């Protein structure tokens, strides 16, 4: 969201700096998520708790699907299709909310409590930290949606949309690592 007075070349120069900064932030966050994975393998080893596999499969599918609609949103603004862009954003946010409901409303209502030793700590630590990032992504989507609704962004200049989309994909990617670590690897106790 740079000043509209600047030329396209200046905009693109700023955007390339922004993009590098965003990816450096991803690298930073990757270390935090990796730290949680380390905690999971250090404490759980080759065991894992009995968890509801169906819920996990559904929310994973929902989150992967949301990356598709997020990608549609970015492609549509690049083709100046504002209506489709706004709708795709809303679909993405809705899928994100479904994911959150799945985590908090179903996953967290199982027989494992946060105070249940390493099982509870790691399960709630990893899903909680990830859910917090999903919330941040939904907030980001609504800011972008609101600005898009007011007529901001164009086919040439939509760094804000791109940043939001990449952030959403990144959160999605983290879950691609967290899901097997929590639900698939190791023997259920």
């Amino acid at each position, binding site marked *: 969201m740079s000043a509209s007075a600047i030329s396209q070349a200046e905009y693109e120069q700023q955007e390339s700096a922004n993009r590098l900064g965003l990816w450096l*932030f991803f690298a930073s966050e*990757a270390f935090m998520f990796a730290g949680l994975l380390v*905690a999971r393998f250090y404490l759980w080893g080759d*065991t894992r708790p009995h968890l509801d596999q169906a819920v996990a499969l559904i929310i994973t599918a929902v989150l992967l699907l949301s990356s598709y609609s997020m990608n549609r949103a970015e492609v549509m603004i690049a083709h100046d299709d504002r209506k489709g862009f706004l709708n795709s954003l809303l679909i993405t946010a809705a899928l994100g909310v479904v994911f959150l409901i799945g985590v908090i409303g179903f996953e967290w209502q199982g027989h494992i409590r946060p105070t*249940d030793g390493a099982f509870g700590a790691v399960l709630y630590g990893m899903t909680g930290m990830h859910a917090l990032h999903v919330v941040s992504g939904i907030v980001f989507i609504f800011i972008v949606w*609101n600005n898009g609704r007011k007529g901001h962004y164009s086919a040439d200049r939509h760094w804000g949309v791109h940043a939001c989309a990449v952030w959403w994909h990144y959160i999605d990617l983290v879950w691609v690592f967290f899901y097997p670590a929590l639900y698939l690897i190791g023997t259920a106790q």
Partner: protein
Amino acid sequence: MVIFSLGIIRGIVGQIVGTAVGLILVTLIRLLMGLPAWKAEPAMIIGALIGAVGFMIGVGALSDWFKWMGGKETPMHHGPPTDKPAWTRYFSVDYNHKVIGVQYAVTGILLVLVAGSLALIFRTELAQTGLQYIEAATFNTLFGMHGIVMIAGILLGVGGMINYLVPLMIGASDMAFPRLNAFGFWINVPGAILVISALFMGGWDTGWTGYPPLSVLAPMGVQAFMLGVYLVGISSIVGSANTLVTVAKMRAPGMSWFRMPIFVWAAVATSIIQLTATQLIGLSFLMVTVERVLGMGFFNPVLTAHAIEVGSPPGNVVLFQHLFWFYSHPAVYVFILPGLGIISELLPVFARKPLFGYKWIALSSLAIALVGFLVWAHHMFTAGMEPFLRIPFQFATMLVAVPTGVKFFSWVGTIWRGKLEFPTPMLFVLGAISVFLIGGLTGPPNGTVTTDLYLHDTYWIVGHFHATMFGGFIFPFFAALYYWFPKATGRMYNERLGKLHFWLILPGFWVQSLGQIAVGLLGMRRRIADYDPALGIQNGHVWITVAGYVIGLSVLVMIYNLAWSARKGPVAAANPWRSRSPEFQIPSPIPEHSYAEAFVITGEPYDYGLPGATYVAMNPSAAPAAAD
């Protein structure tokens, strides 16, 4: 109210209001849930977090971003405020990297002073056996506070050097993200306030490392300390990302990677560590927080009945140490790499000779940073860690000595047959080398498993650590303060007072460091308030304490010198040191926008004394610049 025109005052008010909101919020939620209304720790945590946001809103670091969220564009303000005195910009949000650099450096010095004063209190206690002045619990809080406030102060000092120097050295008009830069500085202030407020919440007794299970059981002060560190960590992460983007994208034409000033290489290496490893100390402290408040047993080895029923494995305290040291060992390279960069930067100027082995020095900074990621478990040889990890970590640790040795050889090679000059910055550079040598040589015995089993948790470690910090950060930082003082203020510091500072601190530090090493070998444990008179080390402790006071006195001399000279000192020339670096080719003090015209790099940075060599062509559109 005039006073509310200062950002920092609005910020502190914001922090107080935010904290109160957090306390009330938690209490109301607990009332609604039918729980006993008041529980101190959750209320304090939420209060601290909302308080930090309140500070950032109050100071104005978020204003532009809030406008962006609403789709409004904001111009980039530059220059001193028009409706207020010029000095007020240092107490408010300002986007000029030079202002932010000074804010970082001055806040850093303040924190170092606070932390040093705390050390003098418990050093006075340690000068005699028995307990005379403070209780054991106070002693514990004081040394933990000394450690963490020093670390915050050093991080701010590093931030000061990087923010002030990197854009100037690469010819950028500012950092890549000026608003993020201001945010990165100001988030430290609520962080520091939180850490220091731990004193009033019962303190804590774990030291700055915060190991569980003690940190899970400690008074609430430990929580304030960890949240404060969390905020300072945010500053490290956003600041380092900013530095890396600035260096990658905004170098002057002709400045290839191997024509950058050597300090910029050090800043890059430091930033790589800060960007990534900082997350792990944040995560480890967050885990302690949720274990304290929510009972999530990451580290607790004792299982509840229900946990046994669901077949959960127990928590493990060693996990904390792995996560914690994954940051906290590389963190010492965050402190020393910029300092070592300053040494390499200044030596050629005062030896009037090319820097010996430029590429080796540049890459040795990177090598220290990268190898530094693989050595953390050498802090854990006695911690009950998996035994098979000992030998790999021992050898990885030894490997750090190789690039560090490269730096020493380069410094000796640069001094060799140079035409040495000895103004205050050069004295501090040479002093830094001598002190860092003490720290460097006492390192490998700690990294070797067989010797570390005896040296671990003794005063030997304290001596080693302080020598690396003084040689790697404090001395070079002081050198940098004197060296760039004329560029920042336009005035010269007092050379006699500068030399007095040096000749007090150098012998003072030698005595302190060698004394600590000696009493450590004679059986002094670290982090204890008292020791057995039969050890025969009381004289050693007296020497260490007296040396500590001498160091404190010398720093006061420096502060008087710089504060006085900034207003009354003689007007400085543009290039008092005959440096080739671009920031010395423009007037003192440096103008608001630094370079009136973009310059071009035409040669190697450190070809001092080579006839006809040029580095910077200041006016590429005009005639070629004269040779140095």
